[in-house]
């Protein structure tokens, strides 16, 4: 047998399960005003001052021996808004982190990354490129591009030039596809394994197949794609979604893309019942992560900052001066799947792989709790499972006919449970 069969899967995150995620919300401003963006309070006013960043870093590094910071590795994450709008601040922060880790003989000096999720608009600019060159071996950068120009520009639009009196920004009609796609070749040259995040809302469903294939054609080999957790779905969306995913499955299999390209919609490990005792882990990492905003407030995840919440108050767990109030973390660190799930989820025959976002759960909950799971994606998950089953049945049959199935089974890698 000469061909070595490979089915590309989405990569695990760096040091998955062993790294502490620490996020700087460096700005709440962005060049874009994407229509599906969950950040309802984006504004031009809240930019992180250097002193806040420095005090926060000192707090974290001073507590090296605390259980919250004992993890082997660290991912320093920068988000916005658009993080690269604050590239000078970020550069200063990263330099300070590197120097302090080294000066203090901190165990994270041997295992850290700086991670960015950017809209890609100013990726080519000198300040960003200088930063990339300087930190090349410790960077993870993902550019968000949503698919075809039509699909991308439906949601990812520029903001209006003038903010309102509260500094809040509003969408314009101008799409951002052309401004982003021009930077994809440079990004892929620097990060050949780079993946992109695609978000699907109700209106995007008809464009899923063409969008994923378009991203593959741009040279992006890993497409991480998710439906939004919010309750935006219309009657019949699940059936349209299933149809799109089956079309995508045909295209990936018939076109042989499965060997070199991955799409997170398809996974062998979803759509199975889950044991209430053995498979009881929480999906989301909120509480194990730590976020800081421009005011120096600390959050269990950025989704608990006020600009991410529609109906609830921010869940602040402390601040850079007083530190973390550990009582406020206890609900997050005791969360399990079954306690927060309604009975229909516990009994669900296709439960595995059905995701949730703790922030959205909190925002949508009837009371002030993180223990009420939002289930707006229920029908969408079930549709995904049906299409996923179709994908694997079709792919296995193809491999069998090509006499490659056994080889694939023997060599496939073990997949760790996905968490947010």
């Amino acid at each position: 047998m000469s061909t070595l069969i490979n089915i590309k899967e989405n990569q695990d995150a760096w040091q998955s399960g062993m790294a502490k995620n620490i996020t700087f919300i460096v700005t709440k401003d962005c060049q874009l005003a994407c229509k599906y963006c969950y950040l309802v309070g984006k504004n031009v006013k809240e930019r992180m001052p250097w002193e806040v960043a420095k005090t926060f870093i000192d707090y974290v590094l001073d507590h090296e021996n605390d259980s919250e910071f004992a993890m082997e590795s660290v991912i320093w994450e920068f988000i916005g808004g658009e993080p690269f709008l604050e590239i000078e601040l970020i550069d200063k922060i990263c330099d300070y982190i590197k120097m302090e880790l080294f000066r203090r003989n901190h165990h994270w000096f041997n295992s850290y990354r700086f991670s960015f999720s950017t809209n890609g608009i100013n990726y080519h600019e000198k300040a960003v490129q200088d930063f990339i060159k300087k930190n090349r071996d410790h960077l993870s950068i993902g550019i968000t591009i949503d698919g075809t120009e039509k699909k991308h520009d439906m949601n990812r639009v520029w903001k209006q030039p003038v903010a309102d009196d509260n500094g809040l920004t509003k969408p314009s009609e101008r799409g951002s596809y052309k401004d982003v796609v021009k930077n994809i070749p440079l990004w892929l040259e620097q990060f050949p394994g780079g993946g992109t995040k695609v978000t699907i809302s109700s209106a995007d469903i008809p464009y899923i197949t063409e969008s994923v294939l378009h991203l593959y054609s741009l040279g992006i080999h890993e497409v991480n794609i998710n439906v939004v957790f919010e309750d935006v779905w219309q009657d019949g969306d699940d059936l349209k979604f299933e149809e799109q995913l089956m079309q995508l499955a045909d295209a990936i299999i018939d076109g042989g893309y499965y060997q070199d390209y991955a799409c997170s919609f398809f996974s062998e490990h979803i759509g199975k019942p889950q044991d209430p005792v053995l498979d009881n882990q929480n999906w989301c990492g909120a509480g194990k992560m730590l976020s800081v905003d421009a005011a120096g407030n600390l959050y269990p995840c950025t989704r608990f900052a006020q600009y991410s919440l529609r109906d609830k108050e921010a869940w602040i767990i402390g601040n850079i001066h007083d530190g973390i109030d550990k009582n406020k973390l206890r609900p997050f660190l005791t969360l399990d799947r079954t306690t927060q799930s309604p009975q229909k989820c516990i009994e669900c025959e296709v439960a595995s792989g059905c995701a949730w976002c703790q922030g959205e759960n909190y925002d949508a909950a009837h009371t002030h709790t993180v223990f009420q799971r939002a289930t707006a994606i229920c029908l969408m998950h079930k549709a995904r499972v049906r299409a996923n089953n179709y994908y694997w049945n079709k792919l296995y049959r193809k491999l069998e006919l090509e006499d490659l199935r056994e080889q694939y089974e023997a060599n496939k890698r073990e997949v760790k449970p996905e968490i947010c």
Partner: protein
Amino acid sequence: MLQYLVILLDDTSVAYCHADNPLKERCLMPIETLKKGILFGMKHNLMIQYVFPDHALPDEYVSVIESIDNVKIYPMGCKPVTGIGVESEADVEVANSISNKVAAKNLVLRLTFSEMLKQKDNIAKLFASGARINLCITDMEQFTDEQIEVYRNLLEEWNGALLNLYKQGQSPQFNLLTDRMVLDKMHNCEAGVSNITLAPNGKFYLCPAFYYDEQMKVDNQLNHHQPTSDYSVGDLEKFLDIPNQQLLKLDHAPLCRVCDAYQCRRCIWLNRKLTWDHNTPSHQQCVMAHIERNASRDLLNEIRKMGDFMPEIQIKEIHYLDPFDVRKEF
């Protein structure tokens, strides 16, 4: 399952648990509301517990109050005189300071941690009164790990006093130390599960503390972006509507459902205040309850040296004070 209906007869009805009553202006429950509340209790087979203020109620209330079997919770020295009905063994007297005279069979003694330390000898004297003593610490949230040893020593000292009484053939009842010795499962406050509170405004609350918070316009202790100070869970017109009621139950409390500090109050009001989630206890609540549990274990072992005592009860040795530290992680 609901079993008890707590009726606050007045805004100034005595506080009998962790939360102080900050309401100083009298506001009596309208008599029609009281009648409807009693009717609600009768229809739902609920035992009614009246909570009295420190002033006498108008005469017309007396016959209404006594129209149903009840338990009375009243401030020390203000025993309600109704002239009707039978005095219940379960009536509760509430004191915010130590008194040598205990009129009721049940005394709730509400003290801060430091007052409790100061008054430890006087408290020990109450053990022999024949009354059940419920000591309620009113500033639990201030408890720090530096006070663990202090609390441990205090309970050890009280264990000595209790043991002497057992040696004399008495059976003192003191919630912090003797309850756990006779429990084989959780016996907690169960606000919103086995009991519900009817306030003078005709609305239901999980417990009186939530009514106080609402009246004082206490937000949610977050950052006050929006007022969320309506804490009611139904009223006499619409009846009960407790959102996420499952989260008040033991099986939906990941830390508590595997815990054996059975005497713990599991105060959901304190949970809400300190951890922001009703089903998650604070470090303070867990640590204090475990110090009590361990001291109960010591007392039980000492009593058993004198002979058989509650042979079916097991309190095993453990090496943690906060179950959070040994929680199952996935």
